[in-house]
């Protein structure tokens, strides 16, 4: 065979190069990393996903709710009047209805429900803290094997349904329930003690259900403490109790704050536990909210209740953040 032989596709044969290949050959594979670094696209993506999530499922519903809270009830579908309406004379009219909020303040039911919710949330948070702190401390100081076991035990209740666990408490606390039967059998009491439908039952249910939310952040904080700090305190003459109060306790403040918020916030709006275990004569705000919404079908008032509850929660959170920011500054 005569004539030149052409090796097709051989690397180094410049005539076969498309411009893209030429660039690849010259510069190597594309390097995204410098671009990502410079543009901060990676960071934006990481922050962006939760941001979109919160906007879609928190901020948007909040605004809808906020809007409804300023409307009037109406027997229609949806059961409230729009804020913006084309009047009969084709004029756009804007109805800002503040009566829902005024109603909340004027009706004793709402005020007392709010106060009761606040009281229950405060006391339960305190009880959780008093119970959870020693537990978290114990877990943090235990040997690694024991620590894993204890953490497992803290998390284990989550494996059964929350509702089921509250029902179980009903079985325990009822007049003919396990606790009363046992006490009667032992002869400690001769009449069943009324525990169901009392504040006591509410606290038992709430503290039982929310204790892990207090223990876990406290544990994460306490576990990080340098044991040398306590040794240093002892070395400087502080007895164990003093060392705890001056060193461990102040250093665990962020854990206390996180745990308290994780308990306080959901307890304010708690619906299931007070409904099943609590007093029929004193409602918590979560129950009021659900009644307004489902029984009365008064969406605007229900929305107003929800917005007011949110306001009630925002105040302590902002206060706490202030305190924490000041501590960090100092």
């Amino acid at each position, binding site marked *: 065979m005569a004539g030149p032989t052409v090796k097709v596709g051989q690397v180094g044969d410049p005539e076969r190069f498309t411009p893209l290949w030429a660039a690849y050959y010259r510069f190597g594979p594309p390097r995204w990393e410098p671009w990502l670094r410079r543009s901060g696209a990676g960071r934006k993506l990481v922050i962006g996903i939760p941001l979109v999530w919160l906007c879609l499922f928190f901020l948007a519903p909040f605004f809808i709710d906020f809007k409804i809270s300023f409307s009037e009830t109406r027997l229609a579908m949806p059961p409230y009047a729009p804020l913006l309406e084309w009047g009969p004379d084709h004029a756009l009219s804007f109805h800002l209805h503040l009566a829902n909020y005024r109603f909340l303040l004027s009706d004793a039911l709402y005020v007392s429900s709010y106060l009761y919710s606040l009281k229950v949330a405060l006391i339960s948070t305190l009880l959780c803290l008093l119970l959870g702190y020693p537990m978290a401390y114990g877990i943090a100081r235990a040997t690694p094997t024991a620590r894993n076991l204890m953490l497992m035990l803290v998390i284990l209740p989550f494996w059964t349904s929350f509702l089921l666990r509250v029902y179980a408490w009903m079985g325990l606390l009822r007049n003919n329930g396990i606790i009363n039967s046992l006490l009667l059998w032992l002869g400690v009491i001769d009449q069943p003690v009324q525990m169901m439908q009392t504040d006591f039952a509410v606290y038992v249910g709430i503290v039982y259900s929310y204790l892990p939310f207090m223990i876990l952040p406290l544990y994460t904080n306490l576990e990080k403490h*340098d044991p040398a700090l306590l*040794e*240093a305190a*002892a*070395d*400087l*003459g*502080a007895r164990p109790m003093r060392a705890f109060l001056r060193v461990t306790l102040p250093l665990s403040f962020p854990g206390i704050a996180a745990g308290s918020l994780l308990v306080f916030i959901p307890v304010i709006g708690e619906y299931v536990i007070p409904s099943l275990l609590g007093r029929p004569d004193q409602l918590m705000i979560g129950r009021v909210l659900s009644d307004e919404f489902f029984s009365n079908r008064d969406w605007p008032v229900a929305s107003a209740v929800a917005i007011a509850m949110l306001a009630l929660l925002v105040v302590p959170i902002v206060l706490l953040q202030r305190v924490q920011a000041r501590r960090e500054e100092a």
Partner: protein
Amino acid sequence: MEGSVRPGDPSGSEVAPPPYVRVESVVKRFGDFTAVNGVSLDIQKGEVFCLLGGSGCGKTTLLRMLAGFESPTSGRILIDGQDMAGIPPYERPVNMMFQSYALFPHMTVSGNVSFGLEQEGLSKAEIRDRVDEILGIVHMQEFLHRKPHQLSGGQRQRVALARALVKRPKLLLLDEPLGALDRKLRERTQFELLGIQERLGVTFVVVTHDQEEAMTLATRIGVMNRGEIVQTGTPRQIYEYPATRFVADFIGSVNLFEGQLVEDEADHVRVRCPELPVPVYVDHGVSAAPDGPLWVAIRPEKMLLTHEAPASGDNWARGSIKDIAYMGDISIFVVVLAGGREVRVTQTNIARSVGESFSWGEEVYLVWDASSPVVGAG
């Protein structure tokens, strides 16, 4: 009174005072691991005693037992004549400077330093005076209101020292006091530390793995290995007359040769080492059994490099230069002997020409003085 002066007594006082710290055959076991194995020690008032050893040798455990964080499995610890058994850390007349400094991160410098005094229940005014005084000594007055995370490593070290010293302890325990500092800062801090120690008359017990730190700080060093104290002595004694092969090898760098005793007199010994062409003549006696295998240790700086063949029948070797490291103040030479044995020699660069007169591959002679080698058994 002159006759009763003990030559080894570092304090140089007329009568040997009772030891300020006495450790009596202390053993500490963790499970089946023996961290400290029968240590006995006497430390005099005003001494700077260094516990020197590698990691896991038990030095930190011993220190923690002095502080009261651990209690001995057996044995006794006496401080100022008082048995420390069962006395918790917060009641001991001892303060400790932690390796990590263990400053309270949520307190300011003044909060950290005054913490110990507050435990004593002193008045506010007195606490302020004493905190001011001690912070003056460590040059940290301007940083009174800073928090630990706003300080540099060296500043934290000073605060940790001030916090321990403000309690006016009779005994200060220091765990790797200079470990976290960079080289320049270490040298400066070392001398400052000694200045403060002398000024306040505190007894120091220092734990370190760094022999340089031990050498400069200590009046006496206790070298530890595997939970036991292998040798105690002044830095000079430890360096020049290592009692065991471990000490010789651990402190500084050394050339160790195996050998057999060929001549054993009261004032000198002669040892034949298979790796050396001529015997080693040592002008001091050897205390060990003469017929067993011996080791001979010669420090790199005690050997001299020369081009001229020595006239003597002992104490030299011949080899070729394999490596030269120019360090500025000194040069390190690695010389390969005929048998393949590598020997380390250092020469001080007293003149610019010293380092330049030897080059790679050159045949040289190594010569040393009869007083230089150290001989031991085992």
